[in-house]
């Protein structure tokens, strides 16, 4: 599909540095939160994106501020990559008034409309349709905006995925469908869930939707593919589909490592950790002098600082009062 030809043009160094910095920031935030999780102060089921940052960062870098994104249960990275407030996220996990949903939504219901993060949801596949609807609204109004749906390899099994793709294809709506194929849905491997020998993006092609496979741990590849796809959508040609191969490092829900629980091996996890998207881009940058080791280190420190402040702010932020429980229903 011409819409999704792989191109090899180099990105400007500033942009590459920015991609790297963003991934570091998201990783740093999530690792800190994972560590703090054991304190039992964040009481909300949390699905960490650790290991999958390149997809969120690569795709969102190809978007404008007024483009919109939707996510599912594993939504921290998307939220942050689109410009969502870190203190707003952390306070939300701590259930405080300072949270983006004032402690009402929790980890799986992040939204910040002013930066184009419209909604995430804990019901598998649900927001795929919603993203299509937002994109359709853009098409109706003939405005050059794009909507993105992020979802996992498990969500594509839901009927809503297909109904949404069919509709998007019929109405040629400017939606970019981004599947993060991390090989598992909770603890179930793809082999018990989808037919062997046919990639997920083939399903999109069966609707005439341009679709391709991308190395989801290569942020530059993701960015390039997303840039083309977004241009295709924005141009009014219709929906596009990216299947990004990646891997979740931690347990499905919660902060722990779980390679000892039988459904995947330590060797498999290790192999993917070795393919860390951050390490990979960092090596690329160092090799090409796009950044220095010192810079890397200072970015990390800055992020740690930022996260620590967000955590402190969250802990200072008041809890909602039980008396306000009915606020915002209608």
């Amino acid at each position, binding site marked *: 599909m011409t819409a999704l030809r792989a191109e090899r043009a180099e990105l400007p160094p500033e942009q590459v540095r920015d991609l790297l910095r963003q991934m570091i920031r998201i990783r740093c935030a999530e690792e800190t939160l994972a560590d703090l999780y054991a304190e039992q102060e964040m009481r909300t089921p949390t699905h960490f994106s650790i290991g999958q940052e390149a997809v969120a960062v690569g795709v969102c870098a190809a978007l404008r501020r007024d483009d*919109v994104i*939707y996510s599912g249960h594993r939504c921290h990275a998307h939220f942050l990559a689109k410009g969502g407030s870190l203190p707003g996220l952390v306070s939300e996990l701590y259930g405080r008034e300072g949270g*983006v*949903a*004032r402690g*009402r*939504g929790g980890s799986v*219901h992040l*939204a910040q*409309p002013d930066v184009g993060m*419209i*909604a995430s*949801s804990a*019901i598998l596949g*649900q*927001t*795929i*349709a*919603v*993203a*299509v*609807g*937002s*994109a*359709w*609204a*853009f098409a*109706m109004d003939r405005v050059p905006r794009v*909507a993105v749906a992020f979802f996992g390899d498990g969500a594509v099994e839901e*009927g*809503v995925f297909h*109904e*949404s793709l*069919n*509709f998007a294809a*019929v109405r040629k709506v400017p939606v970019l469908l981004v599947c993060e194929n991390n090989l598992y849905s909770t603890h179930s491997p793809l082999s018990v869930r989808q037919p062997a020998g046919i990639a997920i993006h083939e399903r999109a092609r069966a609707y005439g939707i341009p679709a391709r496979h991308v190395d989801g741990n290569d942020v530059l590849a993701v960015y390039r593919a997303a840039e083309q796809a977004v241009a295709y959508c924005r141009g009014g040609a219709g929906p596009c589909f990216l299947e990004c191969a990646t891997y979740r490092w931690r347990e499905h829900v919660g902060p722990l490592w779980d390679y000892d629980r039988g459904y995947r091996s330590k060797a498999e996890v290790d192999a993917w950790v070795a393919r860390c998207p951050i390490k990979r881009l960092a090596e690329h940058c160092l090799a090409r002098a796009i950044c220095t080791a010192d810079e890397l280190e200072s970015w990390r420190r800055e992020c740690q600082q930022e996260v620590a402040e967000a955590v402190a702010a969250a802990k200072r932020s008041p809890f909602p009062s039980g008396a306000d429980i009915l*606020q*915002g*229903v*209608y």
Partner: protein
Amino acid sequence: MQRLTYWQAISQGLVQSMERDPGIFVAGIGVDDFKGVFGTTRAAFERFGAARVIDIPNCENAFAGIAIGAAAMGKRPVVVHPRNDFMFLALDQIINLAAKWKYMYQAARGVPVVFRGIVGRGWGQGATHSQSLHALFAHFPGLYVAAPACPADAKGLLCAALRGDVPVVLLEHRALYDLEGDVPEEPTPVPFGQARVIREGTDVTVVGASLMAYEATRAADLLAEHGVRAEVIDPRSLRPLDEGTILRSLKKTGRLVVADTSWARYGFAGEIAAIAAEGGHAWLRAPVRRVTPPDCPAPVSRPLEEAFHPTSMTIARACLEVLGAEAPWGDAVTDVQARFSGPY
């Protein structure tokens, strides 16, 4: 005031609302075809064309989500289901997302999708085309749910739904589509949460939603011939529900009959009875009676359908029962469906 049928009132309310607000569009299976959802979308299609009256694929679940996504970008979608029974497929999006949107994200604004679902009855439509899902929808906070029983309310509630920021489920009743009534010319909203007292009376309160408000009114007429003055209340909106009007009536009459198009258990009739048991206990002088279909799926064959659907007669009998009287008449009242010559 003009006289319009129920379907004409919906059609007019839709066209006028679409004139006011360019963000409104109508979508659903066959909304643009020659039938135009029993006439209700035809005028809108002729007026606004395919850009705003949009035929869609068969995808109830996704389309509810698509409408939500459009609403989140500022649109006001009206999604039409020719039978509300198809909405089971869309419940996840409606209840797990639309209803919770504003609260769960503490959003500045809800997602104002209007879901129209039509309730079927009779003519052998059978088990999957004759259900009424109003109580199901109204159980969940975050939605408004209404079931208009007359042309004016059909228009007024639609107009109201198309102005607020709340996702709304409007359940229209197919058997009322040809009913005529006075309807304001203007697109005047009928507010959610205000019941309508259709007949005033002192002997017994009859609460019925949707078609049962109509049947209850006919029951009241029948009862009046025999000296019984029934007060008939149409809640109009099931969520929010106007408890006050019901309780005030109960205080006056001391007796309550509730009629519903859906089953008794865990349904609308139970809720109204519960309100009486909670807030009206002091006034209740007789056991509450629920008039509802028997506890089985809707059958097809005519004699079974007749045994299945509550009518003015069964309501009138129940009123006499709570009054301790005997029914003095035969099957005198004819069915609103009698004229109907199918297929549907």
